[in-house]
C-alpha cells in the first residue's frame, strides 16, 4: 500500500517538471553534477549553489533571480546525458556539466540545436571543447595548459630529467596529462627518461618506487597527474623509501586530504592548480561568505563552481539577454574577466579553453601554500 503515494507523487513530479519555465525571462542554470561516485571530488554543487544564492540576494541577473536545478550524474556518462536532457526539458538556458568529457560531449550535442552553452565546472580535458566547438567550454584551464605550467615551473627549478607516472584505469586525466607535460618539458629542453605505469585502487606504490629507483637514467623529478588519496600515497611511499625526488603534478593533488595522507612526504610535492584562498583574495572572501551561509568549501572545485556561475553572469550581462545563443556568443567574447579563483579569464579566441593564471602550490610544515603564479608560454595541442 505504501507504494501508492510514492507513485502518485512521482506522477505529480512528472507533471510539474513538464511545465518548463520560459527561457526568455530568467536564467535557469541546469547543473548535471557528479554528486556521487568516483568523480564527486571534482564537481561542486555547493559552490554553484552558494554563488547563485549570493547573486539572488544581490538582486539576480538583469534584475531577475537565477533558478538553479541540480541533477546527479552518479559519475556515469549515460546518466549525465539523460539528466542533461532532463535539465533542457526543464527550461535550462545554460548547462553546467560533469567533470569528464564522456558526459559533457553528449550534453553539448543535445543542447546544440537550441544554441545552449555547456560549461564544465571541473573537467580539465581540452578534448571537450574540441569535440563541441560551438557550445562547449571549460571553466578551468585545460590539462594541456596545467601540464605546461608544471613543466615551466619544474624547468625553472632546475629539473632536466623527468619520469612520467601513467595510469590508464582512471580516465584521460592520469593517462594523457603526463604526455602533455612531456611535450612541454622537452620543448623547454628537458628530457623524459622513463615512464612508469601504476594502477589505482590498492594504493601500493612500492613496486613503482623501486622501478623509479632502478631507472636506467636517474631522474631528478617525477610528474604524475594523480588523484587523491593516491597522490598522497605516492609521495609518502617515495619518502618512506628514502628517495628524495620531487613530484610535480596538477590539480588532482588539490584536496585537503592530500597533506594528511602524504604525511612526511608532502614536502616532495609541487603542483599547479586553479587558485588559493590567500588572505584578501576574492577566493577567500567567497569561501568565507559561503561558510557563513552554511556551505562547506571542500576544495578548489568549490571556487570553480562559483566561477562557472560568474562566467555565465558576465556573458548574460554583456549580451543583455537570456537568449541561449546570445549567451553562447557572449561567452566566446569574454576577455580579462575578473574571476573568483584567478585574476583574469579570457575565452576570446581560445576555442573554449580559457586562458587563466595558475597557482603553483608547495607543501611546507604541514601546510600546502601558494608559492607563485604561472602562465605557460607554450601549450601542447589537445
Amino acid at each position, binding site marked *: 500500500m505504501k507504494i501508492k503515494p510514492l507513485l502518485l507523487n512521482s506522477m505529480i513530479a512528472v507533471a510539474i517538471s513538464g511545465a518548463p519555465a520560459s527561457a526568455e525571462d530568467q536564467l535557469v542554470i541546469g547543473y548535471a553534477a557528479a554528486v556521487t561516485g568516483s568523480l564527486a571530488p571534482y564537481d561542486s554543487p555547493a559552490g554553484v549553489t552558494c554563488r547563485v544564492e549570493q547573486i539572488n540576494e544581490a538582486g539576480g541577473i538583469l534584475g531577475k533571480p537565477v533558478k538553479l536545478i541540480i541533477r546527479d550524474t552518479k559519475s556515469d556518462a549515460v546518466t549525465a546525458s539523460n539528466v542533461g536532457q532532463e535539465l533542457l526539458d526543464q527550461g535550462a538556458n545554460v548547462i553546467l556539466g560533469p567533470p569528464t568529457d*564522456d558526459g559533457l560531449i553528449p550534453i553539448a550535442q543535445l543542447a546544440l540545436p537550441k544554441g545552449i552553452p555547456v560549461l564544465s565546472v571541473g573537467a580539465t580535458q581540452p578534448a571537450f571543447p574540441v569535440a563541441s566547438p560551438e557550445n562547449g567550454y571549460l571553466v578551468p584551464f585545460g590539462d594541456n595548459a596545467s601540464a605546461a605550467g608544471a613543466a615551466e615551473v619544474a624547468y625553472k627549478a632546475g629539473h632536466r630529467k623527468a619520469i612520467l607516472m601513467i595510469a*590508464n584505469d582512471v580516465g584521460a586525466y592520469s593517462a594523457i596529462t603526463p604526455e602533455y607535460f612531456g611535450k612541454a618539458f622537452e620543448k623547454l629542453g628537458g628530457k623524459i627518461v622513463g615512464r612508469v605505469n601504476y594502477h589505482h585502487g590498492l594504493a601500493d606504490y612500492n613496486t613503482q618506487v623501486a622501478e623509479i629507483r632502478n631507472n636506467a637514467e636517474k631522474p631528478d623529478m617525477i610528474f604524475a597527474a594523480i588523484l587523491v588519496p593516491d597522490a598522497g600515497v605516492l609521495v609518502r611511499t617515495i619518502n618512506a623509501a628514502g628517495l628524495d625526488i620531487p613530484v610535480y603534478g596538477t590539480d588532482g593533488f588539490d584536496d585537503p586530504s592530500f597533506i594528511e595522507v602524504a604525511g612526511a612526504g608532502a614536502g616532495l610535492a609541487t603542483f599547479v592548480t586553479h587558485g588559493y584562498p590567500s588572505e584578501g583574495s576574492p577566493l577567500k572572501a567567497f569561501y568565507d561568505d559561503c561558510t557563513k551561509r552554511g556551505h562547506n568549501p571542500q576544495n578548489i572545485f568549490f571556487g570553480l563552481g562559483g566561477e562557472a556561475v560568474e562566467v555565465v553572469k558576465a556573458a548574460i550581462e554583456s549580451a543583455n539577454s537570456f537568449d541561449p545563443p546570445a549567451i553562447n556568443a557572449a561567452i566566446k567574447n569574454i576577455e580579462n574577466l575578473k574571476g573568483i579563483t584567478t585574476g583574469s579569464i579570457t575565452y576570446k579566441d581560445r576555442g573554449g579553453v580559457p586562458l587563466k593564471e595558475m597557482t603553483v602550490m608547495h607543501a611546507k610544515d604541514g601546510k600546502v601554500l601558494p608559492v607563485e603564479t604561472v602562465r605557460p608560454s607554450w601549450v601542447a595541442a589537445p
Partner: protein
Amino acid sequence: MSNFLQSVRGALILGVAVGVIGVLALLFAEPFYQRIVFIFMVNLIAVIGLQVFMGNADITNYGHISFMGIAAYAVAILATPAAIKKTSLATAPFGLGTIEVALPIAILIALALTVLIAFLVGTMLVRQSGTPASIATLALLVIVHVVIMNWVDLTRGPRAIYGIPVKATLGMATICAILAIVAARLFRDSSWGLQLRAASENIAAASAMGVRIKRLRLVAWVVSAAICGVAGILFALFVGTISPKSFYFDLTFLTLAMLVVGGAYSVSGAVLGSIVVTFGFEIMRYLENGPQIVGLKLPTMFGLTGIFLGAIIVLCMILRPRGLVGDDEIDEIWRRRSKNRERSEISANASGAAQ
C-alpha cells in the same frame, strides 16, 4: 495449439507490453522521459540477452556487458565520420582512423565481430559449469575492459569516443526489444533450450548428455552475446559518445539485478524485472533529489538509488530466490491457473453431484 505457436503467443504478450511502453513514450513523453525509456529498452535487450544464457544454462554470467562494449566500440570506430576521427582516432591501426563505413555495414561488422569473439571465448567457457564458469565470465568482463582501456590507439583508451552518428530512435529500440523477446522465447522453448534447462536441473542427465550440452551452452552463449551486442550498438548510436566505464561493473550489476529480480528462468522474468527496477530506480532518483512531498521537504540523499539496487537484490534473494516470476513464463502460469480452476470446478461439481 502447437508449441511453436504457443511460444510466439507468449512472446507477443510480452512484446505488446513493451511495445505499449515504447509507443506511449513516443507519443506523450517529453524528450527526457523518452531518453529514460530508450535506455530502458537498451537495458531490457541486454537483460534478455543475459537471460538466454543465464536462464537456460543456469550459470550466473558477469560477462554479458563486455559484448555490449565490444559491439558498441566496433560500431563507434567504424561509423564515426572520418572528419571527426582525424582529431580523435588519428592513430588507429588497420587504417581505421581514415575510413568511414556506412552505418548498416558497420552494424553488421560489429555484430559479426561480437559473435566471433563470443564463439572463441565460448569454446573455452562451456567446459566449465557452476561457480568456476561464473568466475570465468567475470574474468572476461575485466579483460575486455582492460583491453579497451589500454588499446589507446584503437579505442582512445579511457577517453571517450565522440561524434558517433546519433541515428538510433526510440522506435528502433522498441522494435529491437520486441524482436529480442521473441528470439529469447523461441530459444527457450526450442528443443535446444529444453535440453539445456533439463540438463541444468539435473546433473546426472547433464553428464549423460555430455558433449551435446557443451555445444548447446555454446549456442546459448553466442545468441546471448549477439543480443547484448544489439543493445551495445543501440547504445552507441543513441548517446553518440562512449567510454569504457559505460560497459563495466555498474551496468553489469544493474542488468543482473533486473534479471534476478524478475526471475532468470523465464523471458517474462527478464521483462518484468527490467520494468520493476527501472521504475523503482526513477522513483529513487526523484526521492534522492530531495523533493517536496505534500509540503514536506525531504533531505537530499544521493546514494538512495544504490541502496535501492542492493536492497532489491538482497530481498529478492531472501524472499524469492527464483525471482518474481519464478520458473515458468507468465502465459504458462496463466494457462495452468485456468486449468486448475477448471479442474477444481469440475471436482467441486463432481463432489456436489456425489452428495
